[in-house]
């Protein structure tokens, strides 16, 4: 494609209409982690439908499946922003339960009205996220150590305040999480809203595009006028807020704030985001891929139950898929 200096616009138009030999670039370019994951997910759905034709492919089963993935899905939308910028947050599981427990405490002990308690719970979660971001971006403790620390702090606070948990939350709070619309429970709608918004924001918005630059090369991003530190603090804050929102939705649906809820969620969510195409090095990842990743994990779990296999099999299968998916990536990037 050589361009004539006098007629740049013409040259560009010509270039955009001429189909470039993308196809010849090889089918391999279509084999990405996202497409492989979609293929695996479809294969699992078809397979399970054939084996359990009456019970698996039902609306009821899928609404359960979606409900089970809802809180992970909400949190994964925040996690993908962090992974894209080359960061991650291990404290989300603890934040998830701490937000629920603190809100529960405000509702039952302090007699806060539900909207105020929810607002307070979300604010605390966002503040906790901001704290993570501040430690990472300003104090420059790496994300692993920083969030490993806050993970234990948040969990400790949750247990300290809530003991094993706070049950019998008032219905003014619980009705939010138990509401249904079109046969799907409200946490599912929450996830879908966050995901749709997240997909558009990450793909199209100027603000979120900067995270891809930060993850690709933070130094270059800084020298290109992207406020790296501020952006990272905001990403962690968003993560905290979404973890709080998910924790709230869960406590509300159960009418109980459990201090051990969300244990292990952080690794499950990071796994889902990576299955969905992101990498720990940063610069890569999409919200839709992430959602497929979360859905895939929930699906495997669901199929295992149908197959009456013990839940340990779920870990084994997910672990294998994760390692194979990333290994495949290495292999593909070497052949290009």
């Amino acid at each position: 494609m050589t361009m004539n200096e006098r007629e740049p616009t013409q040259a560009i138009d010509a270039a955009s209409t001429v189909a470039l030999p993308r196809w010849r670039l090889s089918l391999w370019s279509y084999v990405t982690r996202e497409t492989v994951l979609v293929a695996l997910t479809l294969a699992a759905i078809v397979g399970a439908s054939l084996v359990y034709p009456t019970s698996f492919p039902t609306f009821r089963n899928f609404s359960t499946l979606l409900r089970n993935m809802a809180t992970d899905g909400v949190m994964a939308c925040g996690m993908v922003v962090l992974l894209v910028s080359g960061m991650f947050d291990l404290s989300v599981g603890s934040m998830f339960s701490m937000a629920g427990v603190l809100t529960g405490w405000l509702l039952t002990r302090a007699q806060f009205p539900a909207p105020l308690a929810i607002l307070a719970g979300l604010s605390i979660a966002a503040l906790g996220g901001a704290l993570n971001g501040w430690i990472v971006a300003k104090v420059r403790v790496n994300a692993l150590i920083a969030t490993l620390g806050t993970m234990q702090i948040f969990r400790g606070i949750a247990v300290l305040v809530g003991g094993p948990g706070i049950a019998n939350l008032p219905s003014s709070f619980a009705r939010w999480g138990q509401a249904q619309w079109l046969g799907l429970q409200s946490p599912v709608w929450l996830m879908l809203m966050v995901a749709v918004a997240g997909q558009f924001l990450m793909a199209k918005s100027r603000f979120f595009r900067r995270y891809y630059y930060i993850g690709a090369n933070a130094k270059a991003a800084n020298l290109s006028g992207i406020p790296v530190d501020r952006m990272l603090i905001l990403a962690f804050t968003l993560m905290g807020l979404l973890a709080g929102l998910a924790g709230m939705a869960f406590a509300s649906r159960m009418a109980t704030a459990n201090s051990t809820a969300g244990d292990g969620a952080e690794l499950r969510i990071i796994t889902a985001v990576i299955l969905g195409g992101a990498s720990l090095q940063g610069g890569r990842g999409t919200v839709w891929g992430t959602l497929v990743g979360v859905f895939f994990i929930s699906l495997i779990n669901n199929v295992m139950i149908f197959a009456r296999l013990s839940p340990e099999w779920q870990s084994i299968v997910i672990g294998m898929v994760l390692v194979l998916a990333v290994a495949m990536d290495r292999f593909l990037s070497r052949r290009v």
Partner: protein
Amino acid sequence: MTSDSTTDVLLEARGISKSFPGVQALSRVDLDVRKGEVHALLGENGAGKSTLMHILAGVFSPDEGTIRMAGREVCFHDARAAQEAGVAMVFQERSLAAPLSVAENVFFGRQAVRRWGIIDRAKLHEQTRKILDDLGIAIDPATPLEHLSPAQQQMVEIAKALSLDACLLVLDEPTSTLTETETAVLFRVIERLKQRGVGIIYISHRMGEVFQICDRMTVLRDGVCQGTFAKEEVTQDELISRMVGRKSGFNRPARKRGHSTFSPAPENHPAEQAKEKRVECPLSFGEGSSALAVRDLNDGRLLQDISFVARAGEITAFAGLAGSGRTELAMSVFGARPTISGTILVHGQPVKIRSPIEAIEAGVGYLPEDRKEAGLFLEMSVAANVTAASLNRFGDWWLNDKAMERQTAAMASRMCLTADIRGRKVQELSGGNQQKVILARWLLVHPPILIADEPTRGIDVGAKQEVHQLLRELADEGTAVILISSELPEILAVADRILVMREGRLVGEMPRDGATEESIMRLAAILK
């Protein structure tokens, strides 16, 4: 040449040539080092010194030529082979493990062990102490390395080399981070090594030092040996005139007047046109006004009392040797490095620049020195790279990817970036094209002041010429261009005014007419 091949020749390199894609780094270089001799290797940045040293260290293998150690021909396939033959390097970047003790570092991976591989700490410390005593250095072998000063760490590095029975030691700019007293200690150690018959290749830009410590000097220029001299038979001036005078092959880029090449591309869509026009070349100013003025800038570490102006329509070049502080100065002006005092004025108005964002807002752009590390988003597309610093032109909330690609394509055609860039990642492009991508990023921002730090490093001559032409056109349009370059021919070919830095200070200013490589070098080199 003064060397007559006697038996005390330690190293004899003959006819060493080495080329890299697009550049002949060394051609038929001879170098010999005698036992107990300190042999200086002199040359400008990029003269081929480090390539030659890397060949001696077995990191690169030469395209042709022979190396003899103590009369026997050797062939180093890797760094280990060179080490076993007795060559040891002490590089500027230290290759030591900071949290470990001095002894562990000296006997890195070769610690004395007892049964079952348990390290014999007493013996290890004893061996280390002996080596340190031989050098006349008082350091406790048990001290963690990170507690030592840079000078002491360097001694440890030398001790490590000796523990490997090195007979040829390469010291690359050993005094660049040392104080005067530390330098004196180093020189005492060097004297001891000489007495022991160790040969030393000493690379330094500091002429005074070279004459103080070295016995002979070899000068390299453009990868060609300019001769070897005994200390008594040359003067500093003679050496400098041998170091400069590189073949340039650069023509001075032509001036074009009243012809704007780099305002944003014409757009087909009127709405976008309006949107993108907003930031089009925001300021115009007459030639000669000072676009950027820096006064008494200090960073408390390297930069001292730096004051200069850069004028619109001019290319102001900063010359200086490696480590003279040019990049640090640029980063400080750009807000990417803290300063402790100093004022920056843009168009006569004092501005606060504490971050790159504020610098860009104030109208300063910076093309970083290391394009891969600090400039490019290698895994991202060309369009993403070109638009990285001007995302706000492509939408307040939502980005118009189509417009970004159109602008990129238009920019590419203007810059003769002829490679097929659609959908390509930047890492797939050649070095020259990568550099054009970063340049395009800043042309899109179109700041009134643009600092280009080594914009032609590592790219081929054709691309260099194109970059020079682009800088000249920018200046002609009214941009104040600041060029940092280690290539004197480049500076002489492109600059209107030349500022020379040395050890964190501005030591001279000269108009282009009248400046020669020699006069610049005389200012830049450390003469005593």
